[in-house]
């Protein structure tokens, strides 16, 4: 083995040395908050590569691959039909129970799988957080995008079944908007859990339990109007309630609960602002804490 280096110059390596335009000076100073819109806009290429990585890894060495995307909501659907329809005979206001539950589950499927995976989006990339300067928000966003199949597949299934059952309406045009609302809400929630999980490992420990219970605390298996009093108020305070109401309005053309919509929109906005502040604050010491 010869120890002769290749005879080449570091031509684009150094704009400074090549007499080209001097790269801008960067000033590194103490900050209390480290997050910016530029973290995302300047790193679209990185997001794309990370999403491709996550998708590739998710379905490698898996026999059923993407079929698992349908399995989880379908298993819950069967359980709900037995528990809420056959046993409890829940009134769904004229809509067939299976279709009613499927629309709710198609939203829940994304929220639960994206937030479960997303909470570990930073802890699972310890090396990147500790040894590289790639903006940490990018890691969490890429993870959320890589979970999008678990929104698309069940959502399309729900729409197809609704159309076959004759529920098609002009409302359907706004369905992508409801789906985007869901993604935004999930992103805000996940930005908080993922950044806090770096400091407090209790969060990923508590989350599976929370998600297990959460499916019963949103109007997924039953309509919100079946509840009254305190339980109705609590349900209204769940930001997912409004998203599911909006989605059902789009797909099934059922009248949504206006109060729940307004409450959920407000809560989503608050959560987005909160997530920005929390993530930016925790990002400062993330490499130290992880």
């Amino acid at each position, binding site marked *: *083995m010869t*120890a*002769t*280096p*290749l005879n080449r*110059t*570091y031509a*684009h*390596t*150094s*704009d*400074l*040395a*090549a007499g080209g335009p*001097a*790269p801008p*000076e*960067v*000033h*590194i*100073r*103490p*900050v209390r908050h*480290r997050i910016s819109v530029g973290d995302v806009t300047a*790193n679209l*290429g*990185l997001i*794309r*590569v*990370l999403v491709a*990585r996550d998708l*590739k*890894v998710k379905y*490698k060495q898996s026999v059923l691959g993407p079929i698992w995307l349908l399995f989880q909501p379908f298993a819950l659907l069967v359980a709900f039909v037995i528990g809420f329809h056959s046993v409890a005979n829940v009134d769904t206001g004229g809509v067939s129970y299976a279709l009613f539950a499927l629309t709710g589950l198609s939203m829940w499927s994304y929220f639960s799988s994206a937030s479960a995976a997303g909470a570990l989006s930073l802890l699972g*990339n310890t*090396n*990147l*957080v*500790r*040894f*590289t*300067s*790639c903006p940490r928000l990018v890691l969490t966003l890429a993870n959320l995008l890589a979970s999008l199949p678990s929104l698309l597949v069940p959502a399309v299934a729900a729409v197809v079944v609704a159309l076959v059952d004759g529920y098609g309406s002009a409302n359907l045009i706004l369905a992508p908007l409801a789906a985007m609302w869901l993604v935004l809400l999930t992103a805000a929630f996940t930005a908080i859990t993922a950044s806090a999980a770096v*400091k*407090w490992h209790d969060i990923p420990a508590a989350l599976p339990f929370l998600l297990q219970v959460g499916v019963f605390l949103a109007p997924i298996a039953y309509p919100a109007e079946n509840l009254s009093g305190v339980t109705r108020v609590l349900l209204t305070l769940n930001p997912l309630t409004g998203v599911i109401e909006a989605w059902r309005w789009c797909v099934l053309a059922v009248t949504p609960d206006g109060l729940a919509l307004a409450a959920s929109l407000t809560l989503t906005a608050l959560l987005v602002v909160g997530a920005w502040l929390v993530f930016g604050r925790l990002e*400062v*010491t993330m*490499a*130290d804490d992880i």
Partner: protein
Amino acid sequence: MTSDSAPRQVAVRASGLGKTYVLGERLRLGGAFTSRLRGRPVHNTTIEALDDVTFDILQGESLGIVGVNGSGKSTFLQILSRTVVPTHGSLTVRGRVLPMLSIGAGFHVELTGRENVVLQGAILGVPRRIVLARMNEIMEFAELERHADTPLKRYSVGMQSRLSFAIGMRFPADIYIFDEVLAVIDGAFRDRCLAEIEHMAGSGPTILFVSHDLEQVARLCERTLWLEHGRLRALGQTAELLDRYRVRPDARRTQDDGST
């Protein structure tokens, strides 16, 4: 080596740079958090990992950084690589930084060698066009041409570190950082890497080189920075500085300091 008559530009300027770590600040029930709720003072131990250091690194120079473990070498390089945020002072950086703080940071075992190069390029912010243009060169340097499309989990540790080095030296940057990474590779490949860094050092980019192996520092670096307890002990010509460093009072105790 470069010995221009014109004064060289500053690539990195540290002024009053410091990093204080607070120990025991973790939120724990029954601990600091509840004391704070009751209005009691919380006593935290602090550590000055880097304490008020001021110096300039010149453009195009190769600078060695020496000091025992815990002297602040890595903290400084982490701040320069923008992974860690300083608590005092400032650091001005001109040019693109390519940090090698760890072998294979960010590699994914399920992806192939080639896919990992693309991933690393994206993480380091190297334009995709340049990543693809340098792909063959990287695989050649790492001696992995035949394994470019093999998943990394089939690579040996040696193959992974060769790939990591090839990436660290074949991607364009103005400031290259090598933090103790040569310690983990051995044999002929280490000699090639040293020769390559030596070649780079004379051809434009600024090199920051951390090693416990003082022979390597002497071979590669014009000037050397000596950190001690987070403070700047000395900065000067390598030969002269290493003479002083070798006879420091605690030299005997920390002779076999090679760990981490």
